[in-house]
């Protein structure tokens, strides 16, 4: 780090701050303080001048005050005893006639993150809540949350909570929103702020008065409210209709989510809403604010998963333009790939073909993969385009085209002929491991239709010594053996040489083992080889590789307008897996350690999320055996902690389900026969802290939904949520196999 010599700097600044001449000259004094803050920003440890800074807080100069308070908030955890000295000044400021000063002091005092401060801030906060200036009330309301955060384990102060609830009726809009935020944090253990009918209606009426941040926040809180009747529901929707057209995209998205969730039982309303927000979303997608555009595109993709035709007529809006950043282009290509239909396929392919020769290799490859995706439906046109691309003889293009071909031949066997004709000649332009593997696989499996296949493979065998990727050598072994079965005369010699090399010279154990295995297999006779190598293929229509299943809107409505569409569901799952756990433990503030290189910095610039071993995550104990009687007793004694509906198609195969649940350590207590109506099952699981999860599954034949109700013997939301997500994963996997 470039911050050497910090001690000298601290010493010098200390001297300057103590110098009575400087103290007398207000401008110079302020300048020195600014220097302290500047160094602090750069990461220099400035805690050495804490004492002098505390002295500087006693001033009439508001700017100077702000700087000093900023300093104190940063270093208070390091110097708690000295920070207490400042409290006196702060308390005095809290009763200043100027509301701005009162607010500033209260805000700073609440932000001092050090133990023992709350006994000093309690009274000022209570006074602040009743202050006549709403500026102070805003600060005080959030101060309650800050105070609670300092001591998360302490009891929730009922009187304070009541006071906050009553402040929801405050006339200042920001106070109202801050109240919600504050209550949410204080009551997190109990599931957050309660939105009942009067509160919901009150908030709805205040909506137009709020600023955009407030509106977005309130829309988010309203998600919790469940209207009693259909009439009330539609009243709410009508009230909120104008927010779908708000000028702030964040509010539009928030309103959309609320609509989708409130109207979860009215699919036509959901579709209407999505049609309504089409305009704003498209506008955001073509806006000049790139980052916003990116977020909008992610959500467009999410919508397309359920309504593939939704944006088809606007496909031109998703054509990339020259000046757009990389990430937007990649998103747009994905969107194009998903909105293709009979009418626009020609134009979209034409456009994508253009991208394939882009200067940026990444973008070109993404475009080729997109064409590969479209090829699943419009095979002939796409294969033709891909074949033409091979003619360009560009390394980065050829390798991706060949990989696309490999996946395509698997999913659409009808295009095999065309692919086989295109392949000869590619080998000269492939250098990377992925491409080589794909080519070798294709040559091995469909070698009988490609005249020069044995000779291409022979070339690979010649150069096998210089091959750096073991995976390629393994693929080569398999391919050559396969081809040997269909064209023995041409391959025998080559195969012999390769086996010899792999067994005698190869250093990589996996490759050597594979070689030995094939050698011994050949000893067992050619029929045995055929039986093993040409065993029946899995059915491509199984849908494991394809993720095309249409998802109902309800399956993603709760993820809309969060980070899930931005990161993608799978990636979010790994991120959030540990997040629940983290929130639980009262961690020490990181500010205490000024380590410049923490665990946050991976050695390389990997974007991948690092999965640090976290102890607090949900761990289900493998051998929790409950008797049916005990289960029944517990089941009736507990209340339902969570109820949720998962999409489900077709009948249930109890054995598959039971097995899948066993894998994640969930035991099945009882289960209906296959095909029974309604179908029911009871499950139990226990985590390492001894908390029991009892679950009922209910599948009614008429609607394609699996209803689950979970009961828990210790109410803990975090573990409950992770348990639900485990269940969700299981159902997701099984459901996918089914469809």
């Amino acid at each position: 780090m470039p911050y050497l010599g910090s001690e000298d700097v601290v010493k010098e600044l200390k001297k300057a701050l103590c110098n009575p001449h400087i103290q007398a000259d207000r401008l110079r004094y302020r300048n020195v303080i600014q220097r302290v803050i500047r160094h602090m920003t750069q990461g220099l440890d400035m805690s050495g001048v804490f004492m002098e800074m505390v002295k500087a807080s006693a001033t009439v100069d508001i700017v100077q005050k702000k700087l000093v308070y900023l300093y104190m908030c940063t270093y208070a955890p390091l110097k708690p005893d000295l920070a207490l000295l400042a409290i006196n000044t702060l308390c005095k400021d809290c009763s200043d006639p100027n509301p701005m000063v009162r607010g500033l002091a209260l805000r700073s005092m609440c932000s001092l993150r050090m133990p023992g401060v709350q006994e000093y801030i309690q009274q000022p906060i209570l006074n602040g809540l009743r202050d006549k200036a709403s500026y102070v009330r805003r600060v005080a309301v959030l101060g309650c949350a800050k105070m609670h955060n300092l001591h998360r384990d302490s009891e929730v102060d009922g009187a304070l909570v009541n006071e906050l609830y009553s402040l929801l009726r405050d006339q200042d809009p920001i106070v109202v929103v801050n109240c919600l935020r504050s209550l949410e944090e204080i009551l997190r253990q109990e599931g957050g702020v309660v939105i009942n009918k009067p509160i919901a209606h009150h908030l709805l009426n205040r909506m137009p008065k709020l600023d955009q941040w407030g509106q977005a926040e309130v829309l988010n809180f309203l998600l919790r409210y469940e209207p009693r009747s259909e009439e009330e529901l539609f009243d709410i929707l009508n009230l909120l209709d104008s927010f779908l057209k708000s000028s702030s995209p964040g509010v539009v998205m928030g309103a959309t989510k609320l609509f989708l969730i409130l109207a979860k039982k009215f699919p036509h309303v959901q579709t209407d809403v999505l049609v309504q927000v089409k305009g704003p979303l498209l506008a955001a997608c073509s806006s000049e604010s790139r980052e916003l555009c990116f977020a909008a595109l992610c959500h467009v993709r999410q919508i397309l998963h359920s309504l593939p035709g939704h944006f088809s007529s606007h496909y031109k809006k998703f054509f990339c333009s020259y000046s757009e950043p990389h990430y937007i282009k990649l998103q747009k290509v994905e969107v194009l790939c998903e909105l293709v239909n009979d009418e626009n396929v020609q134009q979209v392919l034409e456009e994508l073909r253009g991208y394939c020769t882009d200067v940026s290799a990444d973008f070109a490859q993404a475009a080729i993969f997109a064409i590969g995706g479209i090829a699943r439906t419009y095979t002939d046109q796409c294969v033709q385009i891909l074949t033409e691309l091979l003619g360009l003889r560009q390394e980065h293009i050829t390798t991706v085209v060949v990989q696309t071909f490999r996946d395509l031949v698997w999913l659409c066997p009808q295009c095999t002929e065309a692919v086989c004709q295109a392949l000869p000649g590619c080998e000269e332009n492939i250098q990377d491991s992925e491409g080589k593997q794909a080519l070798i696989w294709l040559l091995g499996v469909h070698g009988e239709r490609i005249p020069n296949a044995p000779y291409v493979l022979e070339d690979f065998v010649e150069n096998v010594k210089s091959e750096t990727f073991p995976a390629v050598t393994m693929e080569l072994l398999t391919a050559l053996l396969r081809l040997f079965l269909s064209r023995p005369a041409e391959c025998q010699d080559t195969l012999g040489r390769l086996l010899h090399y792999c067994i005698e010279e190869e250093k990589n154990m996996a490759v050597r083992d594979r070689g030995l295995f094939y050698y011994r297999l050949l000893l067992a006779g050619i029929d045995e080889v055929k039986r093993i190598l040409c065993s029946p293929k899995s059915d491509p229509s199984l849908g494991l590789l394809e993720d095309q299943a249409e998802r109902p809107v309800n399956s993603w409505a709760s993820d809309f307008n969060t980070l899930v569409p931005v990161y993608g569901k799978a990636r979010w799952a790994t991120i959030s897996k540990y997040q629940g756990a983290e929130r639980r433990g009262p961690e020490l503030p990181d500010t205490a350690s000024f380590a410049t290189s923490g665990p946050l910095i991976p050695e390389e610039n990997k974007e991948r999320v690092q999965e640090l071993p976290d102890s607090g995550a949900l761990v289900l104990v493998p051998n929790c055996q409950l008797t049916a009687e005990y289960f029944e007793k517990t089941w009736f004694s507990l209340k339902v902690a969570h109820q949720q509906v998962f999409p489900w198609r077709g009948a249930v195969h109890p054995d598959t389900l039971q097995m899948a649940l066993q894998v994640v350590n969930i035991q099945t207590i009882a289960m209906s026969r296959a095909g029974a109506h309604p179908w029911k099952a009871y499950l139990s699981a226990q985590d390492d802290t001894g908390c029991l999860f009892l679950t009922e599954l209910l599948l009614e034949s008429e609607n394609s939904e699996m209803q689950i109700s979970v009961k828990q013997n210790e109410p803990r939301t975090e573990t409950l949520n992770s348990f639900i997500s485990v269940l969700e994963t299981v159902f997701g996997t099984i459901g996918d196999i089914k469809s």
Partner: protein
Amino acid sequence: MIGGLFIYNHKGEVLISRVYRDDIGRNAVDAFRVNVIHARQQVRSPVTNIARTSFFHVKRSNIWLAAVTKQNVNAAMVFEFLYKMCDVMAAYFGKISEENIKNNFVLIYELLDEILDFGYPQNSETGALKTFITQQGIKSQTKEEQSQITSQVTGQIGWRREGIKYRRNELFLDVLESVNLLMSPQGQVLSAHVSGRVVMKSYLSGMPECKFGMNDKIVIEKQGKGTADETSKSGKQSIAIDDCTFHQCVRLSKFDSERSISFIPPDGEFELMRYRTTKDIILPFRVIPLVREVGRTKLEVKVVIKSNFKPSLLAQKIEVRIPTPLNTSGVQVICMKGKAKYKASENAIVWKIKRMAGMKESQISAEIELLPTNDKKKWARPPISMNFEVPFAPSGLKVRYLKVFEPKLNYSDHDVIKWVWVPPGHHTSASPPSCFAASPLHQPPSLGLDQPHRERDWWSSPWAPWAGWFLGLLLHHPSVCPGPMPGSVFCDQSQVGSLSSPPLWPHLSGVGGLAAPHLGAPPKASNGFPALSPYSALG
């Protein structure tokens, strides 16, 4: 909620760092620098997740702003907040640059203190902030001022405080539009849309009620039932707006019910509305490039621009930028009109024309000499871009009226409106011209040379695929429908009625015969508005 906010320069040095919540540690600052700013590859996403912490970043020139959070927040909101932050900073000290940020770092900390508390956005209206963050720390406030600030900060109308007074009441209105165009290789327009902004600068006393009218199709159809002949007289009279969004101050309920835009404006500059149209867009220029390769070291480029609007109108400050290959060694340019120069540092030929009337044509031809290279690195073939000012809005939007009414102060004692055309250069507000280009891989409408030859050589020549040329339009339309209205706004109704109606947008012809405002009957003054449209001329 936002856990922390950092500002970096292009080298990754921290200029500002403010942490709001204790789940964000100091090492987050470094994590972002290492993983995003110093990353070798291109930025893959504006949202980066590092060790379960999400970093949202926005880049302004070479400054990075990053918001950090551990929660599952909504991305659009965070980005909007960052934009807002940029706007607020720009309103205080102008351009967001490293130097400005360094010079104003105390101010930025003050702002961050007010705008966010505990990670939650608070008051972010520039107007309100400016009343109490003044950077004059020791200004001893009088009781009166104090209460004024408090009422402003906490008032019911968040965007305007009471008791504003100006000696001259002025109101400026800018319509800024940019055209986004996509062309097929055959020169056919695939899609085009205009995104426009109406920006206002208001310096009005008291609590003025404003009403703004434009030639929105729905309104015109409602009002102009009996006046069909009017529409035929001057061509396109109304435009269909695909979608529009308004500043918070506009009463949306009124817009929904009667399509009228009425509001109490914030003090100072703000963006009244944004809109988007896709139908009947007037494309002011057409660019036709012709490129010929002569051997491997020479290129002949010819670019023709055609203006496509009424001959009586003038386009100004036309600038065409023709990119040249990276291995250019010399360029000879001949142009019939204007001045052209090869700028080696920008790798482009810049051709400037001061004025050009409608329905005219002008061309430039250039011979580009290339250094022979065997450099494999490909050239991205950027689009030809063009920058100009035209005296009409490509969307066809016209301002029909702008009424101001102040119930208490009643500034109707002046009865003059003056329309002055303010050159956009003098507008501090002028938004940076935004570049729009057609999709980069579209072929130009017409190519110079025999195609087969090039197809064969597709990859061998660094430049061969002239398919990379396409039409790009860069448009900066300062349709300043401006009115510094010295004094103020109103004349009486009779005056309006008597105006002749010259056809188009007002500001070209200076002050004299300005456009007549309304179609059909003069706007009614039923609701107490001294109905007058700004299109009335100087008395």
